[in-house]
C-alpha cells in the first residue's frame, strides 16, 4: 500500500532566498497515521505543509531537491487534494458569506452545481456551525471562523489533513471549540493527519506519532509521544518546543508597586455604527513597578482599552489622566513627540509600527523624536541592540526579520525613550517556547525596573508568569472586581475559571519568590 506521504531527501528553497528552508528530509507517513510535527520556528514546518498541499511549484516558487510524494504521486501535481487549515482564519477566508465560503472549494473542483449545496449543508453540520448560509463570515468569532475553515476541508473529503497551528491565533474558548471539532472529526474518519501545533498538551490524545524537525529540516526525533517527550524533553525545550510539563515559573515582583502612572475613569468608547460600545464605563489604574493584565475573550475591548491608556484613542466619554509627569494638558491630546517620552506602545502586529529601513534607525526614531542629542541617541541604540540581542541585525530591514526578532524589535523601540508606561497588545502571540520565555523575562525585567506595564492578552500562562493584577473585560465592561495581586484565572465572581495544563517554556529560570 502506498504511503500517504513520502519524502526522500526532499529539500526546498524559496525563490530569492539564499538559504534552504528544508534539506535532506526523509520521512514516511502511512495512511491513517496521526502525526504531530514539531520544531522551533525556522525549522521548515510550514514549508513542508505547503509542499504537501502541492503549493510549491519549482522553478517559479523556488528550487527543489529530492522527491515529495503524496499518495504515490508528486506533491506538486495534487494541489487542492489535501485539506490545509491555516493559523489565522481571517486572512484565509475567501468569501463573505458562510455558505459561499464552503461552496468555493467545491466550485473549484468542478463539483456539479446540484450537489454543491447539499454538500455544504452537510459539512457545516459536521463542524456544528449552525449559522444560516448567508451569515457574514466577518461576524464569526475566531473559533467559529476556524471551524468554517475546517468545514471547507471536510466538504472536499481529502485523504490527507494538514493543520498548521490551527489554534495559535485563537482565544482559549475558541481554541477549545476547535479542538473539540477536530477530535470529533478525526474519531470518525480514516484520514491521515499531519498537525503542527505549539501547545501540544491538549491535542495529545489525537496523535500517535511525533516527528521533530530541526532547523535545516532534518528529522531530530521520531516516535510515539511518550518516547519523544520523556526521552528528549530537555533538548526539545532548548529547541523552543512546548513540551507538556510543569507550568512556567512566576516572576514575582521584588518590591511593592509604586505610585499610579495612568488612571482611567468611566471610560466609554463607542465606534460609530457599532451595535454596542467597545468599552463601557471602565475604571482602571496602572501602577509603577506593576504589571497589569487585561484579559477577556476576543472582542471584549482589550485592545481598545490599551489604545485609550496609551493616548492613541480618545474616549467617547470618561477621562484618562497620566500621573507620572509629562506636559500639561489633556493626555488624549498630547503631541506625539511628548507622548513618546512617557508612553511606549507595542502593537499586536510588529510590522505596523516599523518606520525605518534598518533596525538601528528604527531604534533611533523614538529618542530623536523625543529630543535626545545625536550621541545620546546613539548610545541608547547601542544599549538596546546589545540588551535585546539585535546587534547582528543592526543593518537589516526590519520587515525581513523572523517573527520573534520582529517582536523583540518592536518592544525595543517602545523602550528606547525610557517611558514610564508600557502598553502591550498580545505580546506573546504565536511564539514558540523559547521566544515566549525571553519575552516573559523581558517584561518582568521592565516591570522590576519601575515601569508600569499594561498587557492586553489572552495568554493565561503569561498572566500567571508576569502579571501582578488582572482586569477581566467582557463585552466592554469590567467583570465585577479587580483581582488581588498575584492571582489570575478567576473571572471576577470568585469562581476559578477552567485551568489548562500548561507547557514548560525555556527562559532564564528566575530566582522567583514562589507562588
Amino acid at each position, binding site marked *: 500500500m502506498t504511503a500517504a506521504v513520502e519524502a526522500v531527501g526532499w529539500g526546498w528553497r524559496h*525563490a530569492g*532566498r*539564499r538559504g534552504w528552508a528544508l534539506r535532506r528530509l526523509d520521512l514516511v507517513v502511512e495512511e491513517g497515521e496521526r502525526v504531530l510535527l514539531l520544531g522551533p520556528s525556522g525549522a521548515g514546518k510550514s514549508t513542508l505543509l505547503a509542499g504537501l498541499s502541492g503549493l510549491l511549484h519549482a522553478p517559479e*516558487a523556488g528550487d527543489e531537491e529530492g522527491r515529495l510524494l503524496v499518495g504515490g504521486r508528486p506533491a506538486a501535481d495534487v494541489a487542492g487534494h489535501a485539506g490545509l487549515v491555516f493559523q489565522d482564519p481571517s486572512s484565509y477566508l475567501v468569501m463573505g458569506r458562510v455558505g459561499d465560503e464552503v461552496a468555493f472549494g467545491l466550485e473549484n473542483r468542478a463539483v456539479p452545481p446540484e450537489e454543491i449545496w447539499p454538500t455544504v449543508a452537510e459539512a457545516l453540520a459536521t463542524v456544528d456551525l449552525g449559522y444560516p448560509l448567508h451569515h457574514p463570515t466577518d461576524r464569526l468569532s475566531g473559533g467559529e471562523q476556524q471551524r468554517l475553515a475546517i468545514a471547507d476541508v471536510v466538504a472536499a473529503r481529502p485523504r490527507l489533513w494538514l493543520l498548521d497551528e490551527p489554534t495559535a491565533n485563537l482565544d482559549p474558548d475558541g481554541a477549545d471549540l476547535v479542538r473539540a471539532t477536530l477530535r470529533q472529526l478525526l474519531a470518525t474518519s480514516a484520514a491521515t493527519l499531519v498537525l503542527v501545533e505549539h501547545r501540544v498538551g491538549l491535542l495529545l490524545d489525537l496523535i500517535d506519532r511525533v516527528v521533530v524537525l530541526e532547523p535545516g529540516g532534518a528529522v531530530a526525533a521520531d516516535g510515539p509521544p511518550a518516547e519523544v517527550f520523556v526521552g528528549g524533553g530537555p533538548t526539545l525545550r532548548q529547541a523552543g518546543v512546548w513540551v507538556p510539563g510543569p507550568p512556567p515559573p512566576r516572576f514575582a515582583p521584588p518590591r511593592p508597586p509604586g505610585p499610579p502612572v495612568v488612571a482611567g475613569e468611566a471610560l466609554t468608547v463607542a465606534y460609530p455604527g457599532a451595535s454596542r460600545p467597545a468599552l463601557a464605563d471602565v475604571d482602571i489604574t496602572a501602577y509603577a513597578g506593576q504589571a497589569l493584565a487585561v484579559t477577556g475573550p476576543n472582542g471584549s475591548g482589550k485592545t481598545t482599552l490599551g489604545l485609550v491608556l496609551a493616548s492613541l484613542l480618545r474616549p467617547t466619554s470618561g477621562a484618562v489622566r497620566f500621573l507620572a509627569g509629562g506636559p500639561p494638558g489633556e493626555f488624549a491630546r498630547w503631541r506625539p513627540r511628548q507622548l513618546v517620552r512617557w508612553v511606549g506602545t507595542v502593537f499586536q502586529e510588529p510590522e505596523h509600527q516599523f518606520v525605518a529601513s534598518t533596525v538601528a534607525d528604527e531604534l533611533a526614531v523614538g529618542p530623536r523624536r523625543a529630543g535626545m542629542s545625536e550621541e545620546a541617541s546613539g548610545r541608547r541604540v547601542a544599549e538596546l541592540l546589545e540588551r535585546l540581542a539585535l546587534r547582528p541585525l543592526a543593518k537589516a530591514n526590519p520587515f*525581513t526579520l523572523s517573527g520573534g526578532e520582529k517582536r523583540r524589535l518592536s518592544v525595543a523601540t517602545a523602550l528606547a525613550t525610557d517611558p514610564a508606561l508600557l502598553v502591550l497588545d498580545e505580546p506573546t502571540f504565536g511564539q514558540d517556547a523559547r521566544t515566549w520565555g525571553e519575552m516573559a523575562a523581558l517584561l518582568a525585567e521592565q516591570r522590576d525596573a519601575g515601569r508600569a506595564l499594561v498587557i492586553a492578552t489572552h495568554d493565561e500562562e503569561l498572566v500567571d508568569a508576569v502579571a501582578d493584577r488582572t482586569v477581566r473585560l467582557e463585552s466592554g465592561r469590567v467583570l465585577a472586581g479587580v483581582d488581588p495581586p498575584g492571582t489570575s484565572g478567576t473571572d471576577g465572581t470568585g469562581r476559578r475559571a477552567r485551568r489548562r495544563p500548561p507547557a514548560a517554556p525555556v527562559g532564564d529560570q528566575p530566582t522567583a519568590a514562589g507562588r
Partner: protein
Amino acid sequence: MATEQVADARTARARRLRNSRWRTVDIVVASVIAVAGGVVFWAWDQLWNTTSIAFAAFPPAHAVMYGVWLAPGVLGALVIRKPGAALYTELVASIVEALLGSSWGLSVVAYGVAQGLAPELVFAAFAYRLWRLPVSVAAGAAAGIAAAVLDLVYYYGTWHAGWKVSYVALVMASSAVVAGFGGAMLVRALARTGVLQPFPSGRRAPVA
C-alpha cells in the same frame, strides 16, 4: 543546427508565454494593490476634507493631486510585471472607488480603463521587459494624459485653449511624479522588505 536554434527559440518563447500566464498570487496581489489604493483614496480625501470642495472647483488644485488616483495601475504593473497588469489594477481600483461611492458613478470605471490602458501601452512598447525609472515615469505621464484628455472632452470642453493646455500639463506632471516616480520608489522600498518575494520585482537582491 538550424533546428536547434528553432527549438531553443521555441522553448524560450514557451517559457515567456508560460511566465505571462497570471498565477493566483498575481491576480490576488494586483487586486489587493487596487483595494489598498481604494483605502488610500479614502484617506487622501479625509486629509483634504475641509478644502476638498474648494479644490474640486479649483481646477489647478485638482490637477496637482490627480496623480494619486493614477498610481495603482502603474504600481500594479511594476510589482506584477506581466502583460495587462497596469490595466487590470487600475480597472479594479476604479471599481472599488465606484463601489465605495464615487461621485462620478460608472464613468469612473470608464476612466479606469483609459487610465490603465495608457501606461499599459507604454510598458508594452518596451515589450514588458524594461521596468526602470524612466519607463515608469513615462507610464505615469501617459496615464495623466489619458485622464486629462478625457476630462477635457467630457467636462471641460468649453475651456479656453490656455486653460486646457495648462490642465493637461499639470495632470501629466502630477501623474509622472506621483504615479511614475513615486510608484518606482515605492516598489524599490517594498522589494527591500522582502514582501515581493513571489514576484520578479522582488528578486534582485536575495534575502537570506
